[in-house]
């Protein structure tokens, strides 16, 4: 069986959405920060058991609140990866409001909450951030080292097939 699923990467600016996109799609990482102003889309095929899953990945410009994202970008979305930066509290202080908003506009979508840039902080720091978070954190990643990136897409892929 072959499936196409649209997954969006969203969250505040500078959290590493584009780096996760490049790491997953092209196995690349660039230290230089380049702002996304709209949306970039690319595709990667993964195998989940007997299913060929074409992940259509949307890298969306970071916004301080999700209600600033153009509604059209959410059309046909099956999965949402909400990314925050483990080194910047401003990127997760309003996470509950953002997740509630996303659940309202896409009630059927699978949502994964991801703390990125784990290479920049200690395990103790990660534990503190996650324990104080107002929603459950599904995974921590590093787009720089690639840690957990493949696993993230495998997990969300499994939830979608």
């Amino acid at each position, binding site marked *: 069986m072959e499936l*196409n699923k*649209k997954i969006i990467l969203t969250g505040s*600016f*500078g959290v590493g959405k584009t780096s996760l996109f490049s790491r997953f799609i092209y196995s690349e990482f660039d230290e230089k*920060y*380049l*702002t*996304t*102003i*709209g*949306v*970039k*889309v*690319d*595709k990667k095929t993964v195998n989940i058991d007997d299913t060929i899953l074409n992940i*259509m990945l*949307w890298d969306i*410009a*970071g916004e301080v609140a999700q209600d600033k994202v*153009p509604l*059209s*970008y959410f*059309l*046909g979305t099956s999965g949402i990866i909400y990314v925050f930066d483990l*080194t*910047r*509290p*401003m*990127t997760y202080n309003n996470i509950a409001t953002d997740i509630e908003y996303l659940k309202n506009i896409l009630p059927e979508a699978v949502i994964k909450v991801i703390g990125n840039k784990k290479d920049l902080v200690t395990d103790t720091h990660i534990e503190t951030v996650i324990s104080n978070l107002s929603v459950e954190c599904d995974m921590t990643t590093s787009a720089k080292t690639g840690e957990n990136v493949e696993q993230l897409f495998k997990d969300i892929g499994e939830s979608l097939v």
Partner: protein
Amino acid sequence: MMDIETYKLQYLSKHAQFIVFDINGLLLQSCDSLFPTQNLKQDPVYTWFKLLESIFEAIKTLEPDQEIIFPRVEEPADYLSGNYDFTFIRISQKEILLIIYDHTKLYNRLRNFQQKCNQVNVENQHLQWELASLKNK
């Protein structure tokens, strides 16, 4: 001097491509202002852009005359390396109009401004975080 409508048409046509395709993705018409479709037309239009490929089923459900705009689409294809707005309009029961408007110059300026703004904000947030950490020691 030319007629104002001719000026308008000449100016606008350089920046926008109009494409009509059916609900199966078959190309019906294209003005080819931004890129030629001669070598693409044997493939369904939804395979030309990953953006469209990922939402094609949803686009097919647009109501007559309904339109949906995707602003600031970055590098949507190898032959479109800038920044564009994509507008889809259901023009009949079986036909969809796609308008691709090239805003590369404008959006490049926006990106430069946004880049500086975001960098300053990120640096400020890091400084605030460091300051709070020092106060807690």
